[in-house]
Every structure is written in C-alpha cells, then in structure tokens.
C-alpha cells in the first residue's frame, strides 16, 4: 500500500524556503501573499510495516530538532489555499530516489521493481486568494505543467481527517515490446509524412536515400541472412534519423554553400566546418611546429591541449537551449551535468576541474505580452541559474567563469551555454591519455543511470502530447549524485586499466555512443533487452535512442569484464554488459535474441546526402545616428552602469560554488570588498606546482545586427583580452566556438534564410581569419542552428550569437593580475587606440539607436600588445588590468575604481584616438583590444619602455578621494562622481535576483 508521510517545520521555526517562495511570487507574478509555509511529502509505495514507516518518518525523512511528521494524516493548518506540487510519472525524482535508498539502509532490503518513493511539496498560502489566482501561482511559479502536476485545495474544502488524497505517479505501461516494419516504397508525400509523424526530422532527399537503400536487392539479401525483411524496422529508422540528425551530423556546417557577397562576387564553400574551423586549426598547427599545443582536436567529445609533461587540459562547451526554454531548471541542470560527461568521456577519461556558464536571456523585467508557450524571462532566469547551481555545486565542480547577456529577442529562445574543463594524465598505462581504441571482441558496457523514455526525440514534443499516466519524454532532470558516483568509480577503473575506451551517452543515447565507438572496430552486436530500464514498457527503438542521463558507454576487454563489473557493484554503480564490438561491418542490434536492426556501418555513418544552401549577403544601409551629446555625462555613466549587460551579476555568482577543489586562485569576484567584476579566473590545478589554467570568453551578439563578421572578430578578441588581462599566456591558448543561430535554411517559414546563411558564412570567415592571425587553434565546438520561436504569425529569431571560449596556461599563478586598482598614486594607462566605434554599443542601444560603426579588430597590433602585456606581467609591472568592453572606457574606469576602493582622475585629451571624436564617443566607444592598467610610479620607466612604439596613453592616476573624475576635451570636468554612487548604480539592478 502507499503511505503518505508529511514533514513540516515545528511551530516557531523559521521557514526560509517558504519566505523565499513568498518573495519570489511577488517578484515574478506581482501577487503579494501574507505568508507561505511549506511541507515536504513522501509518498511511499512499498510493502513495509507501520513500524518501518514510523522509523523512516522519524529517522532519515525528518529532522527531530526542527521538524514534525505525520503519517497518513495532514499537518496543514491555518491557510487560505493549499497547493501540492509533485512530479508527473517518469520524471526524475532525485529526492524520491534518495529516500528509497534511505529506506534500504533502514530496512536492510532493496525496494523491488514495483515499489518506489515519490516526493511532492505542499505550499500553504495565506492572502487574498481565489482559485484562479492560486492556479496562476501554481502554474506560473510553483510548478511546471510539463513535468509536474498539482492539487489545489481551499481551506473550506480541506478535510482535516484525510488531507490531500494519496497519489502515486508510477509509470503504468502495458505495451508489449514490438518491432514495426516501415514500408518506404511509397510516394514522396508519404515519405515526408513518415518523417514528420515520427519526429525523424529528415528531409525528402534523405528519406529518398533510405528508400533507395531499402530497395537495393543486395541489401535485402544480406538482411534475409539475419531474418529481416526488406522493409526497414522502426529501430533502424530511428537509428538512422538520430545519426543523420542536424544535432549529430551538423548538416548545415557540412553543407555545400553557394555564397554571394552582395558585391558581385560568389564562391562555393564545401563545408564551413572543414573549410574554416578545421582549416584554421590545420594552418595554425603547421605554423606552430614543435610548439603545437594541440593533442586531440575535433575527433573526441572534447578538445585536448598540452598543459605540462604530466597533464593535459580538456575543454568542451555545450548548449542546452530548447530544453531550458521548456523547463529552465531541468534543462539547465541537464545541460551542465551533460556537458560534464564530455570531458569525462574524452580520451581515456579526465578528472573534472571547473565549469563555465554563459546565459542569454530577455530582460527579467520584460513587460510586453508574451506569445503562447513562452515562459517569462524572469522565470527562465531563475530556473536556469538554479539548475546550473545544483548541477555544479552538487557535483563538486567550481563554476569559475560566466556572463549573462540580455536582449529581448532571447525571449524566443534562451541560450544556455555550459562548459567544463578537465585534467587528464598525459600518459596512462604507457599510452597517451587522450588516445583510446576499442578492439573487436571488447564488451559493450553501459554504466550509471537506467534507461527511461527521457529525452526521446529531444525536446520536440509539445505539452499537449503529454497526458496523465504517460511518462514525460520532452524534458529531463539531471541527477548529479548518480553521475558523481559513476565518475568516482570510473576514475578508479581507469587507473586500474579496466577498460579500453569510454564515451558519454548524450544526444542519440546508445545509438550514438555505441555506434561511434564501433567505428574503431567496424561493427557491433548489442542486445537491447539487456539494458537496465527505469520501468517496464519501453520499445526496442526507445531503448536504443533514449537520452536518459548519467550514462557512459565503455569498451571493456573481455579479460577485465568480471573485475570491472565487480568493482561497479561494490561502489553501488549500475554497470551492464550489453554485447560486443565486432568487425562485421554491421550496426547490429538484437532484442530477445532476434535481430531488430542490421545496417552497414558505412551507410549509417557516411550515407547522409550533403545539404545544399544558398547564402546572399546584402548591405542593409546602416547609418550613424545624428544625436546631441548628453549634457550630464555623470548621469549617463550611471545609467550605463545600471544597464543589464553591464551591471553586477554578484547575486548569481555567489550562488555558484566557485572555490570547491581549492584551486581557484583568481576568483570571479575581486577587489577590496570581494565584489568587483573579474575579467577571468585563474586555476591552480596541481597543488605541488604553481602552473595555472586561465579560462575566458567573448560574446557580443549585438554586433551581429550590423555585421556578423565583426561580431565574430570581436568575440575572439574579447575572449583573448580577458584571458591575457589576468595573465594567461597568449602563446599557449586554444579556442572553442559555440554557434547559436536562427534557422539559415531558406523556406516559406524562413524567407530571409539566404541572408541568415550569409551571416553564418561571414562569421566563419572571420573565425578563420582571426584565429589564424592570433595563432589560436580551435580544438572543439558545437552549433545549435534552429533558435527561433514560431507559433502562428509570431516569429522571434535570436540574434546570431557565437560564444568564443578560450583556455590556456600561465607558468606562474603568483604573477596573476586582478582588475581592481590597488593604491593611490599609481598611474593609469590605456593600452590601444580608441576609434569612433559606437555602432551596436550599449550607449547607442540605451539611446535607441543601432548605428553603423561596429568595432573592428586589428589582430596584428592586438597580438603585439597582448604579448607585451604578458611580459610586463611576468616582470611584475602591472598592479591591475581590466579589459574594455560594454560601455567602453568610462565603464571600465568606474569598475576599476570602485572595485579597488580608490578614486581615479583621468584626462580624455590624453587618449590616443581617431581624429575628430566627440567626448561621448571617447567615453563609450567599444573599440576592441583595449585594456586599462595601473602601474606603480616606480615601475613607470620599465613599463613604458616595454610598450615603446605601441599605442598607450597615460590618462591620469589613482587618488585617495574615492572620486572618479574625467576631464573633457576642453579641460572641463566632464564626469565627477563618488565611487560609492557609481557602485550603487552598478550593483542595484540585479541585487535581489
């Protein structure tokens, strides 16, 4: 039978969670409640005695000091409305899983297949509430209908003797496993219907390719030998659709593109990826010669570069946009723990070192009506931040770097970039740690979580297709603890030499992980019925492509399999032998001994036809606005500091553990009060060495509104200048590109597809040219190409956005530099030239203009500057260094001053600049490759001689008076403000988020 255990706080104990919920309901929904209290509910569906339940309720399920419990009766009293929120069947319930394990320790027996513990939270609301308002609170804040269900009971309806009715969200499925045959010998319309109805996302040309394959008599003859008919099975069709998906095959980046530059020149590009991304790295590696830092690029789950003779650095950045739009918390949590598996599954496996995260949201204060099915940006913000918080903190991985970019077009699709870096032994058992290879005869082993219907077909489902009793397949919730246990186990197994290859189960599940690993051997034979399931009722094709989380796939040599499985058992990790890698040439799956999938390896991996795209650039005739210079420049600076893209994100940064592992020697928050905005963090991964890792990023989607070429160039430069600002070595750094685009394929739904494709081409050209110019090899990356919202007549496309992440090395962390000014009397220098480049700046955006003069990057002078800065850092000449980005010189000066707790006096007449610039342009231009440094007077000579013949400007000095004072071109005081006022303007906008 099912027991209901309610756990509430004793009288007089502060309900901090309830108070936070009350506060957030007011902030999110504008509904002001008198009080919110919370009760945790455990529904135990297991054959246990009353004594056992009693022991659990008063033992692991409650805290005797502050909580009280009730079994099968309610605790709720003194409320106006009660809302109880629980998960829908099949949704990952981490607390329920832990509660089940606690019962096992308590009772000495494992829960059996049909038993389970399900959790829900009861909210007791007091205030002016009717059912409609309560429903709005439930659906708009407390729960997400996609994954959760709720009961609403008013005080009047509530039965004190019974409470909330027991509900057990168990997955009930009576479906028998069955394999369908799909006849592809049909007309084109029917082919497209099969693709659409099956959520296969294959176009006509691709479906025709499958049709030809099935119709080939040679195929039929081979299939007959294993007992298959000529028609493809649903298992095969799903495996092909997954493998050939945009997500897995990157068809747009692999497409043949006819590009017209709008000025009469045209060219054909055979794969953006091969031409520009792989091409750049190839050129750079050749130029680096024996100084090449790349070890493994593009071929594995993450890129690998050299750190020192003993260790290598692994880095990957992923996006998880669509799932985060549907369920921000689960989507982001899955995003980060999913990204963790990439470096972990690179080479022979690597220990995770830190996370990075970058989000693109619409304003949390968005006040326009939202189109249907979009969550309010505030809710997305809160959910995503919390998801990444739980994913990183619980996994014991510090989140060291990130940013949040605001643009209201991200209401259509938020972007959630999650990155993870890891440290890998340079050699392992006598082989390079980044090399792995499965051999024929090796066992196929899956470890970690079990398989459910989670994430089948990714997030293409809509909520209408979910119904009571059916598992939620659209979104997943990550489980950091199951993953952490698996990682603990696998690192031991790695060091014991218990496997030959490892990869993660992400998109495409087993289909993708086993299929790709089998390219080493040329085939595999896998028994789908052996895979451990979360619940009965999965079809063979679902087992193959489920994206259920926390799973790794390994190739285990047959002589080690017993030891491997034994160690897993001892460490409480699920590990299952699913079959073997072969050299048969076939992608071969069986269910209950019968072949259900039999596809030639070369067809599934190489058979997808190349996409063809047209791209046409057009000059959109951007103009500079004609505006008067603001009269009060101090007020303008205050307003800029309070802009969402510039203001402090401290409230978010503090929610991430950025110091676990004890290696974060430059933290995200720096300065006299530990609250200034660091340019980049520095990590000391080895406690017995002073070598360090620096990670940084650049992202500037606003510039795409003028030209994606310069957007890309600026993102690269921004990433590198943040990196060098703290002391990263410009000659030991690698890049990762993460493209998030709006659909660039011309169609009725996307009439401007050719232009968007041209934007993509231009960004790639800049990527190639600037990476080569800076000598920064690309080692990994990812693209997400369909970031549009379209329902009815409403279409929202995100601005084309590239996150450019960099990772590299510093020889000595003790030479690290932070952005805060250090002492009065220090000299303030600006490195680099300032141009009239206000196009797409924060300043123009604040005034409602776009402009035309987008910032441009001069890589040659920039590289020379960055190298010289590195030398100045090595010699200890730099007291502080801060990059100039959004808001330009004025914002950077203010940030340096209030972070350091000193004033700054600076003179605009000293700024090396383009002729004829106005003061507002000098203050707020976002010209690239510029840095502001402070230097001790005693170091002036050494510093200036290092930078001899470069563009540097001595602007002024650091002062005791806690005032930022900027002198204008006529010698007048243009800006004058205390650092406390500037800091308040900068801190207040998101302080309470």
């Amino acid at each position, binding site marked *: 039978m099912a027991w209901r255990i309610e756990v509430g706080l004793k009288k007089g*104990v*502060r309900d*901090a*969670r309830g*108070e*936070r919920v009350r506060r957030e309901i007011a902030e999110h929904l504008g509904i002001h409640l008198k009080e919110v209290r919370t009760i945790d509910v455990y529904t135990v569906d297991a054959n246990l005695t009353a004594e056992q339940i009693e022991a659990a309720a008063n*033992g*692991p*399920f409650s*805290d*005797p*000091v*502050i909580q009280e419990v009730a079994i099968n009766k309610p605790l709720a009293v003194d409320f106006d409305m009660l809302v109880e929120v629980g998960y829908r069947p099949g949704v990952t319930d*981490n*607390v329920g*899983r*832990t*509660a089940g*394990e*606690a019962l096992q*320790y*308590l009772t000495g027996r494992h829960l059996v297949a049909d038993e389970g513990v399900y959790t829900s939270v009861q909210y007791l609301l007091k205030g002016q509430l009717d059912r409609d308002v309560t429903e709005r609170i439930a659906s708009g804040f407390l729960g997400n209908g996609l994954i959760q269900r709720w009961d609403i009971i008013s005080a009047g309806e509530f039965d004190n003797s019974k409470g909330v009715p027991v509900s057990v969200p168990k997955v009930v499925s009576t479906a028998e496993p069955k394999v369908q045959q799909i006849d592809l010998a049909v007309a084109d319309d029917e082919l497209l219907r099969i693709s659409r109805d099956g959520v296969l996302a294959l176009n006509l040309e691709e479906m025709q390719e499958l049709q030809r394959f099935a119709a080939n008599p040679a195929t039929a003859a081979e299939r007959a030998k294993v007992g298959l008919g000529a028609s493809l099975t649903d298992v095969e069709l799903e495996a092909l659709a997954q493998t050939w998906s945009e997500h897995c095959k990157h068809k747009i980046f692999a497409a043949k593109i006819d590009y017209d530059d709008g000025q009469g020149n045209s060219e054909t590009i055979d794969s953006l990826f091969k031409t520009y991304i792989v091409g750049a790295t190839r050129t750079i590696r050749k130029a680096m010669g024996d100084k090449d830092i790349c070890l493994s690029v593009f071929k594995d789950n993450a890129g690998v570069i050299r750190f020192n003779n003993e260790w290598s650095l692994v880095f990957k950045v992923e996006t998880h946009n669509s799932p985060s739009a549907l369920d921000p918390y689960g989507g982001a949590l899955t995003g980060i723990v999913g990204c963790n598996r990439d470096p972990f599954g690179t080479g022979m496996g690597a220990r995770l070192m830190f996370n990075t995260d970058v989000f693109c949201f619409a304003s949390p204060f968005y006040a326009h009506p939202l189109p249907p099915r979009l969550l309010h940006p505030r809710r997305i913000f809160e959910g995503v931040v919390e998801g990444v*918080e739980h994913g990183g*903190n*619980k*996994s*014991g991985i510090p989140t060291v770097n990130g940013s949040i970019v605001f643009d209201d077009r991200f209401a259509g699709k938020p972007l959630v970039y999650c990155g993870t870096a890891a440290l890998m032994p340079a050699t392992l058992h006598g082989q390079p740690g980044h090399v792995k290879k499965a051999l024929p005869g090796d066992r196929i082993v899956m470890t970690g979580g079990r398989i459910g219907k989670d994430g089948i077909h990714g997030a293409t489902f809509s909520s209408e297709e979910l119904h009571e009793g059916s598992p939620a397949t659209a979104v997943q919730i990550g489980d*950091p*603890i199951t993953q*952490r*246990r698996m990682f*603990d186990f696998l690192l*031991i197994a790695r060091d014991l030499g218990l496997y030959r290859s490892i990869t993660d189960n992400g998109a495409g599940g087993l289909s993708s992980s086993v299929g790709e690993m089998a390219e080493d051997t040329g085939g595999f034979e896998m028994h789908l019925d052996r895979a451990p399931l979360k619940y009965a009722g999965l079809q063979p094709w679902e087992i193959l492509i489920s994206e259920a989380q926390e799973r790794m796939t390994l190739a285990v040599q047959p002589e080690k399999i017993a030891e491997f499985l034994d160690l897993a058992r*001892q*460490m409480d990790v699920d590990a299952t032998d699913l079959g073997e890698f072969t050299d048969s040439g076939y992608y071969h799956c069986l269910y209950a001994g019968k072949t259900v999938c039999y596809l030639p390896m070369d067809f599934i991996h190489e058979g997808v036809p190349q996409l063809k795209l047209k791209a046409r650039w057009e000059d959109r005739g951007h103009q500079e606005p004609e505006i008067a210079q603001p009269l009060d420049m101090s007020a303008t600076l205050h307003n800029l500091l309070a802009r969402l893209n510039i203001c402090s994100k401290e409230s978010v940064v*503090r*929610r*991430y*553990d*950025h*110091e*676990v*592992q*004890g*290696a*974060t*020697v*430059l*933290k995200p*928050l*720096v*300065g006299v009060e*530990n609250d200034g905005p660091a340019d980049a963090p520095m990590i000391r991964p080895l*406690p017995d060495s002073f070598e360090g890792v620096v990670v940084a990023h650049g992202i500037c989607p606003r510039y795409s509104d003028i030209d994606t070429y310069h957007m890309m160039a600026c993102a690269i430069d921004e990433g590198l200048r943040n990196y060098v600002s703290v002391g990263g070595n410009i000659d030991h750094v690698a890049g990762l590109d993460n493209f998030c685009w709006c659909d660039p394929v011309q169609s009725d739904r996307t009439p401007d597809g050719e232009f968007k494709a041209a934007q993509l081409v231009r960004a790639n050209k800049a990527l190639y040219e600037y990476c080569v110019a800076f000598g920064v090899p690309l080692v990994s990356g990812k693209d997400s190409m369909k970031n549009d919202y379209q329902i009815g007549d409403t279409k929202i496309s995100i601005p084309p956005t590239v996150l450019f992440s960099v990772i590299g090395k510093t020889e000595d962390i*003790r030479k*690290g*530099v*932070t952005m*805060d000014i*250090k002492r009065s009397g220090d000299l303030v220098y600006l490195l680099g030239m300032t141009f009239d480049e206000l196009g797409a700046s924060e300043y123009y955006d604040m005034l409602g203009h776009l402009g035309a003069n987008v910032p441009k990057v001069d890589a040659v002078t920039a590289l020379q500057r960055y190298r010289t800065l590195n030398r100045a850092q090595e010699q200890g000449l730099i007291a502080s260094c801060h990059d100039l980005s959004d808001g330009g010189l004025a914002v950077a000066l203010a940030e340096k001053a209030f972070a350091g707790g000193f004033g700054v006096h600076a003179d605009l007449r000293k700024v090396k600049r383009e002729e004829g610039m106005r003061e507002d342009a000098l203050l707020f231009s976002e010209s690239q490759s510029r840095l502001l440094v402070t230097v001790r007077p005693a170091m002036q000579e050494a510093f200036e001689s290092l930078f001899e013949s470069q563009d540097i400007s001595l602007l002024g000095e650091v002062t005791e008076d806690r005032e930022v004072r900027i002198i204008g071109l006529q010698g007048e005081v243009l800006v004058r403000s205390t650092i406390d006022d500037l800091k308040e303007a900068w801190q207040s906008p998101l302080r309470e988020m």
Partner: protein
Amino acid sequence: MSKQVKAIVIAGNGTNCERETAHAIRLAGAEVVDIVHISELLAGRVCLSDYHFLNLAGGFLDGDDLGSAKAGANRLLHAPVAGSGEHLSDHLRQFIADGKLIMGVCNGFQLMVKMGLLPDLDGELRQSATLTFNDNGRFEDRWVYLKADAESPCIFTRGLDGVYLPVRHGEGKLVAESEQVLADLESRHLSVLKYSTKDFSPTMEYPANPNGSLAAIAGLCDETGRLFGLMPHPEAYVHRTQHPRWTREDDLPEDGMGLWLYQNAVKFIREELL
C-alpha cells in the same frame, strides 16, 4: 612506523572536498593521509581503527536530498560492515572512545550534527541541534571572519583568535533544540567559532553572518575538544593565493589561516596519541 600521524578522509556519495582536505592535512605534516571511498570501509577492507584523524569533508552527500547530510547520516548509522556483524557506527563509537580526532567541514559538519556527534552534550550521541536553510533561502559562496573562543576545549583552535575562511553552503544556520542546549553550548565554550565583523566581534548581521545562525555560531566542538565541526572551509585556505585579496594585500603570510586548524590537529596527535 608507530610514530606516524595517520589521517583518513572519507569519499563517495557526493563528498566533494576530499582531495583538497587531504592536501591540507599533508601540508600540516601528517605522514599518512588516505582518501578512502566509503565502499572500502563498508567492505571491511579499510578499518577506521588504523587512523588517528577522521575527516568528513564538504560536499553534498546524496545531494542533500532529504535535508543536508540526512541521508548520509542514515547510511553511517545503519550500514553494516561486511563480514564483521558490526555497523560502521560501531567502529565510529570505538574511534571516539579511543580519544581520536574527528573534524567535519561543511557537509561533514552537518553530518556530525545530524548523527548526534556534535555537540553531544549528554554523551549519548543524540541529535540536539541542527543545521538548516540559510535565512535568505539561498546557497552562497562568500568569505567570512570567524572569532575563536579562547576558552574552548577545542584542540583545533588552540592559540587562535580568529580566522578568515570561505563559506559555501545553503544550509548553515545552526538551530538548537532548546534554550538550554544553547546555554550549555555557550557556558561550556563549545560554540568555538562565531561569524564576526572584520574586527572579530560576533555578529548577527548579514552578510558577515551569512546564514542567520543562532548566536552567530559557525563551528562546534564536543567537551573533549577532539570532535570539531564547522561550516566554513579551512581546507580552502592553506596557501596565500587562495585568499580572495592576495593580489592586493602584500603582507599575507605564505600559509593560509585554514592550515592552522590542521596543524593543531597533527600536533595534538603527535603529542597525545602517538
């Protein structure tokens, strides 16, 4: 061999800080520091009695899913050790009875409190206090000043006036079962570390007191002074470059303040237990 200080750091099920904790103990001079996965203890392959110093490191045991460290406490209390007919909790009691040292940091402190190891006012290992949600309902990473009670029996804080360390938790607010428990904690000097202002006076003001903890309590010891737990992370500040302002404060010593706590432990073991 008998002159070696031996420390164990337990890992597994969401413990996260085992490696930096082991590093801190090594720096403090312990000769043997083993990171041991809990499955090794439960399998009976490693025995607690071989060590002098047990470390329960920070992390999120079982995700803190049932409340911080609750599920972890349940495991330690009820999990049997294979082949011995005993429970891990029996070994733990013996370890304490032998006068050895236990230090719990953050999640490890939560674990000690929820198992009744701290403050253990009546010697019965009964839970009499708890650590629950911060007053602001949020996880936070920030550095705090901590005033040490000079009259405390705590062997870890001997000779210290105060320390500066990071907190990184969402459930660090100490709540006592009764007024009497609090009175006992204070009168017996068991509330050994308190959240303080920069000049080391205890405070209830956020953010210097990051969680609203009762009487600003950040760390507790038992009456022997050998069992000690604290929410802040001493293992996170063992070297100058871990201080958040090391790039601007030129007079910081090479060793971090957190190291002092481990050095005291190792010194005590060397003098009293070897």
